């Protein structure tokens, strides 16, 4: 389950973005990667959050979001939201 979610998140991160967003090394992202080290800038992370909510049909609370540290935390959060 966690692997599937990670793959889905990586697929979102790897999607071509409008404009000149910097390319990410998606293959290098693991559950242990810190969210602030994915390579997203302050705008790209907003795009990403929007896409995650849309893809998993969940609503991410901002206070929860800023408390997440690693990609694995995001995976756990997404899965908990989907289950709940």
């Amino acid at each position, binding site marked *: 389950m966690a692997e599937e979610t990670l793959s889905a998140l990586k697929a979102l991160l790897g999607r071509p973005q409008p404009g000149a967003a910097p390319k990410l090394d998606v293959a290098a992202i693991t559950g242990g990667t810190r*969210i602030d080290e994915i390579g*997203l*800038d*302050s705008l790209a*992370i907003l795009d990403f*959050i*929007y896409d995650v*909510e*849309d893809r998993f049909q969940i609503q991410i609370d*901002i206070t929860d979001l800023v408390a997440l540290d690693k990609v694995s935390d995001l995976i756990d959060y997404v899965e908990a939201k989907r289950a709940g």
Partner: protein
Amino acid sequence: MSQLRRIWNRIEAVAARGLLLAVAAAPLPVVLAVARVAARAAFVLWPRRRRIAVDNIRRAGIRADERRARALALDSFRAFATMVAETIVARRRLTRDNWAEHVVLHLPAEAEALLREPGQGLIVASAHLGNWEVAARAISMVKPICVAYRPFNNPELDQVAHAAREGEHLRLVSRLEAHPLRFMRALAGGDVVALMIDQHATRGRVAIRFFDRPAWATKSVAMLSLTTRMPLVFAFAVRTGPLRYEVHAAGPLEVARSGDREKDAAVITQALTAEVEKAVRQHPEQYLWGHRRWRSH
């Protein structure tokens, strides 16, 4: 960095410090008189910026003929010089006790309630109209505010400017700063996050129309609103007299999500841009016209 560049950077920073001290110490009428002279000098000696301002005014349809457009462009230069001067003065003179004598808030009831509610995050979109620095300082007296800014290329000068612009509850955050969650953290902490939306954007942008002409604008404000679901208002401060301002606002804007991210961002940004345009039409002499707003790339 070359030795020559370092020396030049130091000279700029020392000159800026001297200017800040002089402006802060001088009587306000003297400061304003010097600002007017400086604006006139810049208008004469900076033909490229003057040309941009005049062209923009004519393209926006604010003034059709060259002579009247030039007069308005000069007013715009004066407004900018006054803004800089009064921002420096305001740093010492606006206090928690007296700020309301200088800045009057004219906010819609809902926006005012959001601003005064402790712990409630609020996104403020603004424009280079009137005095955006004093507006931020005044708002910081009510609620902590985090303002996005573009740092100077000269790091020493940036340090001086940064110190002069920050306040007890007024935090400047560089657009180039690394942490991607910085604005979300501020909102989650109940702060105001203020961003400008009226300048040409080269990336992370959406196509909008400004004065019925195609332009590019940052989608940052829209995306921040769409993802955090924090209330979004447009606000600006117009000058009504020496160190006297009125802050006006529109909103909170209704933000609906369609599932099409870029479309949603464009709709919100266009709505905000329409508010900018409305405000500029009311106070064209206080708008920063000397920016190349309409670019094709």
